[in-house]
């Protein structure tokens, strides 16, 4: 009964899902950290920009952003992200959209982590004469990262699931292959079961492992 699975590149589809997840995770961690630094920094304009970015981006559906990268950026403004063929372009656009969207949530997770660092830490760091960037880099962020492992893990899990939205612009990841399979084959429950199993395998260990890591590295206070 599993014969038909061989007609589809199911492993390849899940590999695309993993690639989308990893690339977007790295990108959004970098951009999200920068946003968080802007939001807690002393420069009013950066603070305003960070706040506006987060409030705007997290209230737009991811689907709108992803579809816009394809229809707006690519087809209207001819942005190709340095790729030639259709598939690579859409893959990179999807990564771009996922980074822009997820960074807002990374920023919020980090900010909640910064809030858990006791006031005395930053005060002591200032008292020995560290500048803002030193306070943030050497004292506050290292502790903030450690206490935001669990919220960041939740963002990562959500990101894994959100990569399916890339199906909207034709990236051949798990959800698109599922749609294709359902249209051609009769075993609906079996197909859904296989795809669901794939996502459970991807997300459940992430949650468990990172939850354990989060407990392990959390600063005991």
């Amino acid at each position, binding site marked *: 009964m599993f014969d038909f699975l061989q007609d589809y590149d199911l492993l390849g589809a899940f590999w695309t899902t993993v690639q989308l997840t990893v690339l977007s995770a790295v990108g959004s961690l970098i951009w999200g950290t920068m946003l968080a630094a802007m939001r807690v920094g002393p420069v009013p*304009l950066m603070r305003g920009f960070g706040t506006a970015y987060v409030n705007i981006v997290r209230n*737009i559906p991811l689907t709108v952003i992803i579809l816009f990268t394809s229809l707006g950026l690519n087809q*209207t403004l001819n942005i190709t992200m340095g790729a030639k063929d259709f598939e690579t372009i859409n893959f990179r656009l999807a990564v771009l959209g996922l980074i822009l969207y997820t960074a807002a949530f990374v920023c919020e997770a980090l900010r909640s982590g910064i809030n858990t660092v006791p006031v005395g830490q930053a005060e002591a760091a200032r008292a020995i004469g560290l500048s*803002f960037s030193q306070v943030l880099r050497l004292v506050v962020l290292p502790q903030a990262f450690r206490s935001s492992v*669990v919220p960041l893990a939740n963002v990562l899990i959500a990101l894994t*699931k959100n990569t399916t939205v890339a199906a909207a612009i034709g990236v051949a990841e*798990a959800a698109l292959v599922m749609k294709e399979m*359902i249209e051609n084959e009769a075993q*609906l429950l079996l197909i859904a079961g296989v795809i669901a199993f794939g996502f459970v395998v991807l997300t*459940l260990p992430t949650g468990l492992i990172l939850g354990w890591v989060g407990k392990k590295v959390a600063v005991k206070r």
Partner: protein
Amino acid sequence: MSSVLYDAQGPRAKRRNILFNVLFLVALAAVLWWVFSALDEKGQLDWVKWEPFFTGTEAWTTYIWPGLQNTLLAAALSVVIALPLGAVLGIARLSDHAWVRVPVGVVVEFFRSIPVLVLMIFGLALFSEYSNVSSDDRPLYAVVTGLVLYNASVLAEIVRAGILALPKGQAEGAMAIGLRKGQVMRLILLPQAVTTMLPAIVSQLVVIVKDTALGGAVLTFSELLSAANTMSSYYGANTIASFTVVAAIFIAINFALTSFASWLERRLRRAKKSSGAVLKADDSQIAGAAGTGTGGSI
């Protein structure tokens, strides 16, 4: 303006801040100018492309309003069905009987770890194969099915966390005066937990509204996002304009909901009528309690 992370600024720091402000402004202006000129070059800023939204009501009454109605209808249906279902699942997960608690736990964790889009695609196929729902209504049914399955399990976790956040003394006190388990839950725990959970529930609404857009992009559900698509082909490829308008509507709805949630949170925290902690509007901490993540309010 000072914070704990930096000192009150002296003359040098103030000068440096002004410099950073100016540099950032220049960088921002450069990006904006680049965007503006790219749009202008492609003629996306021409008045013709934006006119339909500002003169006359055709675009609003023919495309946007029906789309918005479908978005709100799908979101409302999902909430109305998912809320009681989530409450039942959440309470069942706290049951004393392992044969109730464990299977419900498995179901909840299962549906939380699957993307909504996969559930929607499954729902669409399910309705077309095993029901006689007309093909016009199928996308709506599929979207609502997917959203209910996913959000009921997320709401179940919110309900569970809300009840667990109450002080132990509440349940103990209730049992001490001779209430039964059902009465403890119904009369003592749930009423207090509901106020505790309200902010988290309202911000889950934002997730639901955002996820309806998936139906438009993948399942041919004619909601607000698909209205943008139709408009941009009808009004001569005004993609940028249509998407801007639609995104602005989504932002307005969701920003209102988010602000309402944080207002509720502040108010409940201040009122302190319920003795438990108030669940944050951003429910990442709830997921932390659950072992596996929900992905919170994304």
